């Protein structure tokens, strides 16, 4: 396409695509809510949908670097932050739905849930990681944190594991879906481990 001939135009198209895709589930939810198509238990539905999309964007985010190395398409990395912020957005909506709509701001129940129910403990810890990463995602924060920025943002690997464990621990007996996410996250982390080992070997050889 003529429109996408310059690198800048391609970058812009990629950004637009990321934004459209990122907001699509939210728009879908709002439309379903307005047209009364959230089903018999709307609060549960919103909780599940936002949680699922938070996990999906987290997985996509973890997939960016492997995909870039596979395709050599370096531009992909430019949208990694967008995907990460969408993961945070949906995780925040997920937690807000739970605290506001499900618990009705019953802080005592929330405290009890976080301390006594392992899947909520893990889910809340995962949200805290995403909050820390989202709030240090600006250019100014990258500059300010300097060499500490990268180790901090490696916590996203832990967030990926946390999100999957949260999902796995909450289902009643059908573990198929969380196990699919577990397999994807595991392979995305293992491929990084392989790279790290290869780098180390190369460094030792060099």
């Amino acid at each position: 396409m003529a429109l996408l001939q310059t690198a800048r135009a391609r970058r812009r198209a990629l950004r637009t695509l990321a934004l459209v895709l990122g907001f699509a589930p939210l728009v879908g939810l709002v439309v379903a809510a307005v047209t009364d198509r959230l089903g018999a238990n709307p609060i549960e539905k919103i909780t599940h949908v936002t949680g699922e999309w938070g996990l999906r964007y987290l997985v996509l985010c973890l997939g960016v670097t492997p995909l870039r190395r596979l395709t050599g398409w370096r531009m992909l990395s430019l949208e990694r932050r967008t995907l990460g912020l969408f993961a945070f957005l949906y995780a925040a909506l997920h937690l807000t739905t739970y605290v506001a709509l499900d618990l009705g701001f019953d802080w005592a129940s929330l405290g009890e849930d976080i301390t006594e129910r392992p899947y909520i403990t893990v889910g809340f810890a995962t949200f805290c990681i995403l909050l820390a990463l989202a709030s240090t995602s600006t250019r100014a924060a990258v500059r300010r944190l300097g060499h500490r920025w990268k180790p901090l943002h490696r916590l996203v690997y832990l967030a990926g594991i946390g999100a999957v464990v949260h999902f796995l621990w909450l289902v009643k007996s059908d573990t198929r879906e969380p196990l699919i996410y577990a397999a994807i996250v595991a392979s995305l982390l293992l491929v990084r481990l392989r790279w790290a080992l290869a780098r180390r070997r190369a460094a030792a050889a060099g």
Partner: protein
Amino acid sequence: METVRSPGLTPNDATPEEVYLGRREFLSRSALAAAVVGSVGLGCDPQQANATKAAPLPTRALPAVPGPPEFQTDEPKTPYKDATQYNNFYEFGTDKSDPARYAGSLRPEPWSVTVEGEVAKPGRVPLEDLLGRHSLEERIYRLRCVEAWSMVIPWLGIPLGEVIRRLQPTSKAKYVAFTTLHDPEQMPGQRRSVLDWPYVEGLRIDEAMHPLSILAVGMYGKLLPNQNGAPLRLVVPWKYGFKSIKSIVKIRLQESEPPTSWNLSAPREYGFYANVNPEVDHPRWSQARERRIGDFRKRPTLPFNGYADQVAGLYAGMDLRKKF
């Protein structure tokens, strides 16, 4: 055959003719049902048109007499749409919308139930014979799911105790065990082993004989939709919903406590008794509150789901934290 009367009725309240005729209609509508079910092939997934289709909702009225007033709740009934589209029936899939989508492959008629164990005459009994001549009662019950949501449902059924009494249990009959149909052709969810199929449930004999326990064949004035456990299901309103086993093909009276599906699947989380109890949390979530479907705020969960006056005596002296 003896005429068994509803506990709440006086001898003067003979079964009205239209009710009796209505029951006859229910018993003879199999051909109609087969025709209706057979004609609706356009469901969801065109690639598996036969295996995965929604069941048409029953339309014909099923007359019944009101059940004993002391058992009825006057809380607002859950909308029919919600009660038929938000179901846990893993035989058709684990998503709440799966049963409504896929239960069309179940063939509830004709249906028979195998009666086994400590009874006078074991054997296979056509559903209509199992129900006997007892007229259907409408029982408006609360239903509390172990997942902390609840509904109010007008069931149509007959007391389980009446059925068991007619089976003439022996003195060794201490428990009643129930089994759901096991047929992956009709129940596509059984192709995946999310539970150890077939689904099994059980009650202590005194729980089964309690007048609150019913075998339901209908709800909201009509036959049970497939996704709600057609054609025959248990309803035990003071226990979590998973005790109320659906699409029953076997009833066995026995001396020992029968295994139950969710207890087999996760013994730490689901006990044999599964009485609704706000004091005893599920290991992974609180049971203190519940969301009534249709409500925004949660409400406190009542001991024995609000039926403590009727059933608490069954558990006198038992530690309900241990026997959860």
